[in-house]
């Protein structure tokens, strides 16, 4: 279980996260929605220890992330998989080496077992005959799937997805959403997904929370989200330009 308590983070004078409190239950898929710049990705990076919070507590299975030593963090990271927005595959390595990377660093599997696991994971995300290609030779959707294969290869308990469908066509977005559901069913992972894509959010979420100006302003099931009276959430899910969400309409021209 992941517990986030009173989490605060600022960059310079800008307060990005203001007293965030979240619980993520085992086996659950929590989707975090919100406009760009509301701190969704920063929240994910705080939870996995890529960014250090200014104050607050983050507990993963009872271990406090914020005060863990480097060695303790290393142990905790074995439970965490992270799918980056632009996949963040290592340019200099082949797809096979990318997927095998975490297995070599975080497990004690031998090369034969690693090769077998890599093929399994690539098949699971629907990639075939790409083992020897470099990331630059893959399409956007293939990169996302290869990034997903890399994140699930060492069988983490928690997977964090940073905008997994952004930049993809609607069909590929749906394929990725199905993949997230399938992985949860097959591997029983707990997932935290950051997205703007409401179609995908409704499809994959057990629970949806919305961040606005660095605060959690809404929590509910997909059904409750659809039927909410909260004007901010309503404006966001309807994708309306008119409403309480503050938008700079001058586009810097004034």
């Amino acid at each position, binding site marked *: 279980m992941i517990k986030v308590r009173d989490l605060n983070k600022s960059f310079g004078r800008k307060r990005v996260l203001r007293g965030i409190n979240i619980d993520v239950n085992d086996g659950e898929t929590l989707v975090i929605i919100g406009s760009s710049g509301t701190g969704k990705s920063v929240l994910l990076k705080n939870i996995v220890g890529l960014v250090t919070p200014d104050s607050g507590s983050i507990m993963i299975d009872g271990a406090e992330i914020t005060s863990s030593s480097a060695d303790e963090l290393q142990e905790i*990271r074995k439970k965490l998989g992270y799918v980056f927005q632009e996949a*963040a595959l290592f340019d200099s390595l082949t797809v096979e080496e990318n997927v095998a990377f975490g297995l070599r*660093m975080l497990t004690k599997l031998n090369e034969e077992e690693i090769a077998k696991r890599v093929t399994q994971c690539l098949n699971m995300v629907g990639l075939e005959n790409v083992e020897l290609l470099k990331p630059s030779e893959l399409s956007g959707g293939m990169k996302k799937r290869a990034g997903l294969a890399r994140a699930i290869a060492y069988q983490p308990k928690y997977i964090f997805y940073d905008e997994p469908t952004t930049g993809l066509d609607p069909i590929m977005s749906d394929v990725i959403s199905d993949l997230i559901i399938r992985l949860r069913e097959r591997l029983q992972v707990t997932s935290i997904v950051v997205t703007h894509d409401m179609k995908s959010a409704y499809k994959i979420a057990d629970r949806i929370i919305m961040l606005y100006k660095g605060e959690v302003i809404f929590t509910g099931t997909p059904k409750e989200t659809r039927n909410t009276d909260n004007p901010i959430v309503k404006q966001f899910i309807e994708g309306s330009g008119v409403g309480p969400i503050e938008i700079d309409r001058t586009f810097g021209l004034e």
Partner: protein
Amino acid sequence: MVKENTIKILKARRFAKKAVADMLYSTLESIGQAASMFFEILKWIFRGGISVKNTVSQMVEVGWRSFPIITLTSFFTGMVLALQVGSSTSNLFNEPVYVGTITGFSLVIELGPVLTAIVVTGRVGAAITAELGTMKVTEQLDALYTLGTNPVKYLAVPRFLALFFMLPLLTALANIIGIYGGLVLTVNTWDVSTTTYWSDVLDFMEISTFLHGFIKSFFFALIIAVIACHKGFTTKGGAEGVGRATTSCVMLSMIFILVSDYFLTELLVSLGIK
């Protein structure tokens, strides 16, 4: 009117003071971060477990792939030196004297280490910053962390070790090729025999002369590696940021090499290594 002008002047002063303070702060911060990276690199080296494969491939990149350009530049540097020395001594003494001695000394104690370091800065230091900077802005460094790998250990240490061991070797190579370039020119232009040239080169040269250049090249390697890795790891702002970091790496490395060369020479001479 006078009051308005006074307010403007005061505002401008305040702005200038703030700009200077910010610049000073960011310079000190940058030096602190680079020093911290250097100590982290040392920590990982002493802890062990460094990837031999990565280190060897970096050594090939730094050493073997720099070989042609170092050969070319040092050969011509040796020829230019021999030409200048022969011409000057011919004007002074009516014959080219000590061409081998001056060419050899200039190369071994000064030009060899400094020129090699500058060429390696342009070829290797810039490439390290550009590669690490691109990894930073495309979140590949974050990906390394999430896969249980410290980027300093995995990326910076092999590059540091490669530079630390290969730059002195490249310097030795530059010295030999430069002296050979001087020989080719001296024999063909100044009509001095090969034997005379070699005895000129070797008669006054001692072990400490070679040591002088070698010690410098180890320091230069350290400067290039730390600045290149630091600039790469702290790159911000997409492709433009990578370009800025790379330029900054080359400029800073060259400045530090040339300035530290003076202080190192002072120190080594005072220690009798000359």
